[in-house]
């Protein structure tokens, strides 16, 4: 039964009161940190945490991480449309599931929510959504009976697992409807308007400070590991390590990534001007006087090849 039918049946206040507890959609192992966030809010509100999972063997794990009740359902979003969650969290990559369920409940939704908290008097969900690629955030308050948020699990701490926690698996006879969108499998595809560097979210770039082709290969491995684009400064282009389209600088391209990793880049004015819109800059360079350090958020003075080798080992 949806919100309109309920309201018609029992009045709006009573209908709103049916919505209770914090519900977490956690079909993927990567979503599990959401349970820690839900637990934190539930402890301050004094309510239960429900986890909706697709794999029954994960039940003990989600209970240890903070769930009081576990529901196993083939499609968590469809299942949640049949429940009455007061607060409901999805991982950020499942926005379309969260938004469909929110619409069904006539609920507000904060996507990619940061700094979530609950106003204990009004029970409003407060949170912030980044705009203009994270330049600033809009602060929202949700006042609907059900309140939805999508959260990036990578921004949350690893949740604390307590193997002695108790919880129950709540049986259900939910049958997930057939999805309307049919998956025809992976394809090999390169988007037409691909502008890797100017639009890249993460960039690894090299300069002459990396010394040789062996160092460049290490930097390329880091880029691959991070899912980043690869570029270089003028000196890298002169050394033949990058082509014109991958030269970062006023003579090449200007970039605005979220994270820019400069490895062995000295940081001449023409290079630093072209990365002025980067949000976070990491610089690795042997000489502590290098100008790149004046614009970097994290500075590592050291031999780039050594730092990269250790970093790659640590990232796995």
């Amino acid at each position, binding site marked *: 039964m949806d919100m309109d039918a309920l309201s018609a049946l029992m009045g709006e206040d009573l209908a709103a009161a049916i919505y209770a507890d914090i519900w977490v959609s956690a079909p993927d192992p990567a979503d599990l940190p959401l349970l820690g966030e839900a637990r934190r809010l539930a402890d301050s509100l004094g309510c239960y945490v429900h986890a909706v999972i697709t794999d029954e063997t994960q039940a003990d794990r989600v209970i240890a991480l903070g769930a009081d009740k576990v529901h196993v359902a083939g499609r968590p979003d469809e299942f949640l449309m049949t429940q009455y969650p007061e607060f409901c969290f999805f991982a950020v990559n499942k*926005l*379309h*599931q*969260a*938004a*469909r369920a*929110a619409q*069904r409940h*006539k*609920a*507000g*939704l*904060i*996507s990619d929510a940061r*700094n979530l908290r609950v106003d204990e008097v009004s029970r409003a969900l*407060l949170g*912030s*959504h980044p*705009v*203009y690629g994270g*330049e*600033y*955030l*809009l*602060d*929202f*308050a*949700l006042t609907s009976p059900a309140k939805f948020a999508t959260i990036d699990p*990578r921004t949350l701490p690893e949740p604390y697992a307590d193997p002695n926690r108790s919880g129950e698996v709540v049986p259900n006879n939910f049958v997930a409807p057939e999805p*309307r*969108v*049919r*998956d*025809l*499998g*992976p*394809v*090999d*595809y390169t*988007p*037409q*308007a*691909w*502008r890797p560097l100017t639009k890249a*979210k993460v960039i690894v770039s090299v300069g002459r400070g990396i010394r040789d082709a062996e160092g460049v290969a290490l930097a390329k491995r880091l880029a691959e590991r*991070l899912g980043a684009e690869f570029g270089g400064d003028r000196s890298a282009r002169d050394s033949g390590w990058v082509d014109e389209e991958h030269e970062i600088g006023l003579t090449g391209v200007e970039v605005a990534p*979220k994270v820019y*990793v400069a490895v062995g880049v000295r940081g001449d004015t023409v290079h630093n001007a072209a990365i002025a819109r980067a949000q976070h800059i*990491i610089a690795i360079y042997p000489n502590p006087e290098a100008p790149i*350090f*004046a614009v970097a*958020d*994290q*500075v*590592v*003075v050291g031999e780039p090849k050594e*730092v990269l080798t*250790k*970093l790659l080992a640590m*990232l796995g």
Partner: protein
Amino acid sequence: MNTLVILRAIQDPAGLSVNRRAQKVFINREQYIFNPSDRNALEAALRLGGEVTVLGVGGAPVAQVLRDARAMGAARAIQVTDEALKDADALVLTHVFKRAIERVGGIELVVLGAEVLDSDGAQIGPRLAEALDWAFIGNAHELKVNHNTLTAIVARGRAFARVEADLPAVAAVAPDSNKPRYAHAGRVISIFSDANAVEVWCLADLDLSESELQPVTELRGESFPPERELGKRLEGDVVAQLAETLRRI
């Protein structure tokens, strides 16, 4: 094939600067542009052929974008504007779009951008699909329509997959998924001299109930990421600190 594209206008980020220390957003130059991925959505719709209608909610900025869209090749443009929509949130906008789509009639495919730069608007596509009870395809890179079936290439992380759904459907188009065309010069002149290039509807035309117009999201203000501290030299286990930063991206 009748396609409708939802367009949103945003303040041009080039005319905007954010001062984290003052905790303020400064608009140096008020100038509105297409929400970038909506422009890709319009291009994807125009490539499908058939009649393309563009729809936007808001005041003068959106009217401008709708005119641009007509100059790019859209056959019809509709602007829904009403003082009462000034505080509209995603829920209310979804109701407005749904009713406008029903009023246009005969629409089989709704296309819009998968990202909205200046607001929490990416949720509108899937919300609209739910409200209309249509299929939803997100993050689409290439759309094709064959008889009654929509096929799309969608991004999954850095890989791509092919999916299909029966029409009617809503598709959200990924930013930079195609190269939007330039407006035709002749059309620019004729559209901009035509006072009726954009039809203007108000809320009364849409016959929405009071509860459908009740927002549930309240904008309380803005907040800012912490101020950047530049030139900070890492001490101790520097590699572990770098790894920690990089794991979070």
